[in-house]
């Protein structure tokens, strides 16, 4: 009986052209589009050192941490090409456009620029981050001086690593969100599985429910088939992106496989909730699913990369509960960080998300009779 239902469900879903289009061919087309659209961006955005000047006064010499940071960013990390000059020379260099800005350390650290731009934003961002780190360290300093230096070194080290990773590419994030979106597209199969098992949603389900097959058994087989198909499609997309389009996903294959498997489960369980949410047709539910998934993908930065950071900064809870964002972040962390902490944190969030979706679905599905069909 298991194989009878399994094989037929597999056949039915694989022959569903609309569903296979949305879950496989559309993402492949989107990946190709991203590739064509972004292929020149990385080379155009190749990072060149930013010319700056630092006013070499007494306050600068006394601010050891800042002095150390700027030396590191200039000499080791090659972010800045720094001239140490007096205030007049700094002003002249800026006036002649030979530098993007100069830094003057007084009571506060001030950045002087002539015009706005990416380089000026980076200089300002460095100063802001330094203030943030330094503030944290000062608080600890009051409590326990002996660990201050260790933490300070660690914070500076992490900070440098984060901003200076030579693998940085502004386009990979788009492909990460694409993978996240495809995982969520497992919802297509989730909606279908629910529609085919709830008598009040389809006549085929009513026919099934008058047969001697337990509804949950049928549903579990349907969801298993859904998972297999969607996961295969996700792996096909991943292979296409990595091996054909040559997008670098790092070399941590196993965590990526585990992550996308969980992402697929999250997508299917999300679809199950959408499927149960109303008595509309499967097309209506699919429309809802596509809209919500696109919105979640947008918020995770699929269309505009900065949106992701705006959401994380201003509505962190939304970023935390967005499954596309969880997948994107986990892939991002696998690529950029040497440890798996952030990856596991996102993976765990994804598991929690799926668990909640499955639990709610199960509670609704336990119903055996309906008030109306």
């Amino acid at each position, binding site marked *: 009986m298991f194989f*009878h239902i399994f094989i*037929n469900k597999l*056949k039915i879903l694989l022959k569903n052209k609309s569903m296979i289009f949305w879950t496989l061919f559309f993402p492949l087309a989107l990946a190709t589009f991203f590739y064509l659209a972004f292929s020149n961006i990385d080379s155009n955005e190749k990072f060149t050192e930013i010319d700056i000047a630092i006013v070499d006064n007494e306050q600068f010499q006394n601010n050891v941490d800042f002095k150390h940071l700027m030396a590191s960013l200039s000499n080791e990390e090659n972010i800045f090409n720094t001239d140490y000059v007096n205030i007049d020379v700094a002003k002249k260099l800026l006036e002649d456009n030979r530098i993007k800005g100069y830094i003057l350390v007084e009571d506060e650290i001030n950045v002087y620029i002539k015009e706005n731009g990416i380089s000026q934003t980076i200089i300002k961002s460095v100063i802001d981050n330094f203030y943030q780190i330094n503030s944290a360290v000062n608080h600890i300093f009051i409590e326990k001086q002996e660990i201050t230096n260790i933490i300070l070194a660690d914070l500076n080290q992490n900070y440098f690593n984060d901003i200076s990773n030579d693998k940085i590419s502004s386009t990979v994030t788009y492909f990460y969100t694409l993978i996240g979106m495809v995982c969520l597209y497992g919802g297509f199969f989730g909606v279908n599985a629910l529609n085919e098992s709830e008598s009040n949603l389809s*006549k085929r389900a009513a*026919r099934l*429910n008058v047969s001697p097959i*337990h509804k949950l058994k049928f549903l579990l087989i349907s969801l298993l088939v859904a998972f297999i198909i969607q996961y295969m499609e996700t792996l096909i997309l991943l292979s296409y992106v990595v091996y054909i389009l040559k997008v670098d996903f790092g070399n941590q294959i196993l965590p990526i496989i585990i992550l996308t498997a969980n992402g697929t489960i999250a997508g299917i369980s999300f679809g199950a909730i959408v499927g149960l949410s109303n008595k509309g047709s499967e097309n209506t539910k699919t429309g809802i699913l596509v809209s919500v998934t696109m919105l979640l993908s947008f918020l995770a930065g699929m269309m505009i990369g900065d949106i992701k950071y705006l959401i994380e900064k201003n509505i962190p809870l939304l970023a935390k509960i967005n499954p596309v964002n969880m997948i994107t972040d986990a892939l991002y962390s696998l690529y950029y960080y040497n440890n798996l902490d952030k990856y596991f944190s996102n993976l765990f969030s994804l598991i929690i998300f799926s668990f909640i979706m499955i639990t709610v679905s199960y509670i609704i599905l336990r119903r055996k*009779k309906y008030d109306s*069909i």
Partner: protein
Amino acid sequence: MKNVIEVKKLNKKYKNLQAVQDLSFEVKEKEILGLLGPNGSGKTTTINCLLSLLNFDSGSINILGKEMTPDAYDIKSKIGVVFQDVAVFEELTVIENITYFCGLYIKDKKIRNRYVEEAIDLVGLNDFKDFYPKKLSGGLLRRLNIACGIAHKPSIIFLDEPTVAVDPQSRNNILEGIKKLNKEGATIIYTTHYMEEVEILCDRIIILDKGIIIASGTSKELKELTSIEEKVTIEIDDLKQEIIEEFKKLKNVENVSYDSKLLYITYKKGKDNLINLIEFMKTKKIKYNKFFSELPTLNDVFLELTGKELRD
């Protein structure tokens, strides 16, 4: 014969609408029971309650001597259902669809394949085995829908308006198939609003209106409920009003009307109505083109009991 279905005081309400009220009936083994009623009379609701798909407010339903519940899988394995709406997979061919649904009941592949072939034969889809549903006409699709519901040879079959929007050829095929299933031993519960179908098919008929049983019995028994003996239609080219009035005065005549050269006369119960009528026309030298008489139909029964037509 023993009862295979027993329904007692079934009540089902949708918000403010009482869909089924105090419905009690039984279905005997190997009989064809017709549930006849206009749209919205509660036929489908009754079937869905019987199948444990719908919650109901009160009453009891026993099938094959056991209480019918959603978990009554032993009962479900002996039931076949043909829903009003076609419920097949567009992605599977005719034979694949029937095999799939039959496979939910029959594990043995050899037996299943034999049953599937027999079902295809029964509904006359031999030439369309490898067609996908979207390539089938409405009538053929209905036949496929029936084959999917009965291929596993159930002992009780529920057919919910299986001939709606079906061409005459397919309708005949479907009705013949149902008779054959019954001859092979299946008990059949057949809902429809086509009185002709229940007259042809059913051993016993329950007439429903607004969720209430208004009459039940064999076709003959039901027709005896009406006061009408027969209805006569005569084609007369020209008929004066005073002659029409004289027709009304004939013995046992209940109603007379004349429209588009057709004279309609309804007779109450009584003897020699036609002889008297022919005699009257001969005396009055009334020339007529056509003359035909018909016995009361179930629609007349329904009209008399409810004051409205079955297909209202």
